[in-house]
């Protein structure tokens, strides 16, 4: 066996070479330097143009490069001044006049003023604007009520709306309302999204495709220069790999930690951050036909689903039980007297018997994933089991997210009795207005895919949308929540708590209820 002999030597040589190479490489990946925060993101951003993007993933970067006229107060969903120092709303709620902050410049050196604000909104809304072709601007409809933006003087700008629209201010605090540098848009045109310039705490450094977006501290930031020298956003789409990077020290801050991975981060080396956000996860019930046309059966479904078990077992505590259609994160508009439907299968069975719907067959649309959907397959299966326990016969149909939206958004009629859904919004108006009103049935362009209709709710929502007084709006929303909970057009399931993990080198980090990532006060040792 001379042949094997020779080869064994060869193998040994190869083995030695391999061992040497391994030795040479170990330690090749340095720890992350102080002053530089490395963030594990969930995807490559589309663009760094706030008017052109729609994903939370991109917003996490944008909020650190740009400012809006207003912003959310730290830890809340209430607006406070940012690039505008004050504003005035006309009696009828259709004219908003903003006084702008003096002495602010964009990162490219150009001045922030009323002309810049006008440029931003005209670019998005006016199809004849010379830079409208730098879009498309998919979320421009947030401001579709704006009929004109006028420059009153250098530091005063006036918006005129086609009617009173209460969510206008919180829409301005949303990333779509962030202000970009007109000079930079003029210079880069359609490439502005890769050469961003704003007024925020960090300036754009570089974007290496599929590797990293680097932003650097803006020493002249009007609200105080950040402590960090730079932030690096790394797209790591696979959640397991993101977790491994965090454990190996390759990133300092990880967002959207999968529930099953949280146990890896117990102990002193890591801090787990949690923050409930404006998110609600629910089941749309088909109130037009089939068993759920009867309000008692819809209520029965709410009693039958064990929401505690869902949030604690399936979601490992990364969500809280939802009581109604409005997430508690909208503290000012949330009705704290609302108690979630308790888990009561007996009561559910009684209600079903009363409605004569025993053994009803239900078709249940489940999605495989999707924005804000958490763990939809596992949740769908658990819900199926709960509903079968009270005597329903539930058939699940699973769809990929885009296909799912294509099935659910046009309405459930003739297709299904119930469907999973989740929303994340920036104003308490958005979801109920788009998904609970009679005028929001799918045939009228809304998302009321279960055909819920209650004229009283319609009236309350219309009134809240045009009320400019926040207390009045709050009163209307609270009343709406009580009625909607009773009518049970949905099974109210969960409010997601966003999570993040930081290493022990990171200080002063807190998640925001807006789900934005604000890094200007963060310290990295």
């Amino acid at each position, binding site marked *: 066996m001379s042949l094997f002999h020779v080869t064994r030597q060869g193998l040994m040589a190869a083995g030695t070479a391999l061992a040497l190479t391994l030795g040479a490489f170990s330690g090749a990946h340095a720890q992350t330097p102080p002053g530089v925060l490395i963030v594990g993101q969930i995807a490559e951003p589309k663009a760094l143009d706030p008017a052109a993007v729609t994903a939370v993933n991109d917003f996490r970067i944008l909020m650190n490069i740009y400012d809006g006229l207003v912003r959310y107060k730290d830890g809340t969903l209430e607006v406070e001044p940012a690039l505008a120092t004050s504003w005035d709303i006309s009696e009828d709620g259709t004219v908003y006049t903003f006084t702008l902050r003096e002495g602010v410049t964009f990162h490219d050196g150009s001045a922030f003023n009323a002309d810049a604000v006008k440029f931003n909104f005209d670019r998005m809304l006016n199809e004849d604007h010379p830079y409208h072709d730098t*879009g498309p601007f998919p979320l421009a409809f947030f401001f579709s009520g704006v009929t004109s933006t006028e420059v009153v003087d250098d530091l005063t700008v006036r918006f005129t709306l086609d009617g009173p629209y209460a969510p206008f201010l919180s829409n301005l605090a949303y990333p779509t309302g962030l202000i970009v540098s007109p000079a930079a848009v003029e210079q880069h045109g359609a490439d502005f999204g890769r050469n961003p310039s704003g007024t925020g705490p960090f300036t754009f450094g570089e974007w290496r495709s599929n590797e990293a977006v680097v932003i650097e501290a803006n020493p002249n930031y009007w609200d105080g220069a950040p402590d960090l020298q730079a932030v690096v956003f790394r797209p790591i*789409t696979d959640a397991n790999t993101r977790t491994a990077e965090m454990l190996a020290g390759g990133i300092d801050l990880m967002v959207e930690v999968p529930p099953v991975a949280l146990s890896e981060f117990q102990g002193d080396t890591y801090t787990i951050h949690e923050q409930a956000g404006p998110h609600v996860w629910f089941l749309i019930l088909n109130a037009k036909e089939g068993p759920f046309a009867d309000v008692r059966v819809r209520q029965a479904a709410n009693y039958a689903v064990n929401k505690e078990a869902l949030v604690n077992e399936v979601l490992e505590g990364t969500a809280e039980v939802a009581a109604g259609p409005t997430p508690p994160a909208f503290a000012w508009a949330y009705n704290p007297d609302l108690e979630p439907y308790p888990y009561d299968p007996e009561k559910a069975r009684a209600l079903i018997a009363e409605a004569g719907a025993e053994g009803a067959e239900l078709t249940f649309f489940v999605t495989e994933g*999707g924005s804000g959907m958490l763990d939809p397959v596992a949740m769908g299966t658990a819900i199926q089991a709960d509903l079968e326990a009270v005597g329903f016969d539930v058939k699940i149909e699973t769809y990929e997210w885009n296909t799912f939206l294509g099935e659910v958004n046009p309405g459930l009629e003739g297709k299904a009795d119930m469907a999973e859904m989740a929303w994340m919004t920036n104003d308490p108006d958005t979801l109920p207005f788009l998904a609970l009103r009679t005028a929001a049935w799918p045939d009228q362009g809304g998302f009321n895919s279960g055909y819920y209709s209650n004229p009283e709710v319609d009236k309350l929502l219309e009134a809240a949308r045009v009320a400019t007084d926040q207390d009045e709006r709050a009163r209307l929303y609270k009343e709406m929540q009580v009625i909607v909970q009773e009518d049970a057009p949905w099974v109210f399931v969960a409010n997601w708590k966003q999570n993040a993990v930081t290493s022990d080198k990171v200080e002063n980090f807190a998640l925001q209820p807006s789900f934005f990532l604000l890094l200007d006060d963060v310290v990295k040792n």
Partner: protein
Amino acid sequence: MTGYILKRLLSAIPVLFGITVIVFLIMAMIPGDPATAILGNFATPENVEKLNRDLGLGKPLVQQYFIWLSNMLSGDFGTSFALNRPVLDEVLERFNATLVLAGTAFVLCSFLGVIAGVISAANQYGAADKGITFVVLLGISIPSFFLGMMMILFFAVNLRWFPVSGMWPIYGDRTLGVLLSHLAMPATALAVVATGVIARLSRSAMLEVLRQDFIRTARAKGVHERGVIWRHALKAAMVSIIPVLGIQAGFVLSGAVYIEIVFQWPGVGRMLVDAILKRDILMVQGGVVFVAACYVLFNIAVDVAQSLLDPRIKT
């Protein structure tokens, strides 16, 4: 030979044309459109229609196909909806990364697979054969993405020998050593299954050759056993091993999709998965056509290599 190559290249044209039709039809038929994917919860019919119009998707299908095809023939693959940059730039950049990964894995699996196969065959039913067969079967049976995750856990998280993911470090110079340290785990994970397959098929190819008369003649002439195996037998066996390598190259390329996701390798496979989920139509179409064209060309190269080795194949 030139005529043969030319003939093969010409026969690739209808294949590529067919690929463009199939890819286009698949993307047109799958439910969901880019506007819905971009707008998510806000995809009202009105918003979807406006955005689709802004994206230039309002035209009839046949017209869309020919616009796409003629643009592509003039080198314009369009602009990605999801990444907002020219499809061709992105594909070329990503394809480079995939070539580095798949190329390394391919060299690894060809080299190790053939050597393992030859050793197995030369020691048929011996200890080395049994040992190699066991390892090879183990390798074939482990899904590469699972192996990849286990490697990350062991070598990157626990031992910290290698970086977890990516192709380049965030900081520091881009040296060959740094690239190799990023490449080691994904290339190995990607090569394992193909190594096993190549080893098994090389073994049977070698066994067949070793039974032939010219081997006995060579031995009778007093050629050293090593020379018999590596020079005479392997050369003859390569004729049946090379097509196997060609097929495995395709598997390595498609297997790279999983590996690129697990190791966050910025390659074309990961790009296509992201693009499909986002209904980034032009990106999927452009990427698939590009990869398919490369695969077709590679297969032609394999056939040409085979005909060079084996004059019995008609040119």
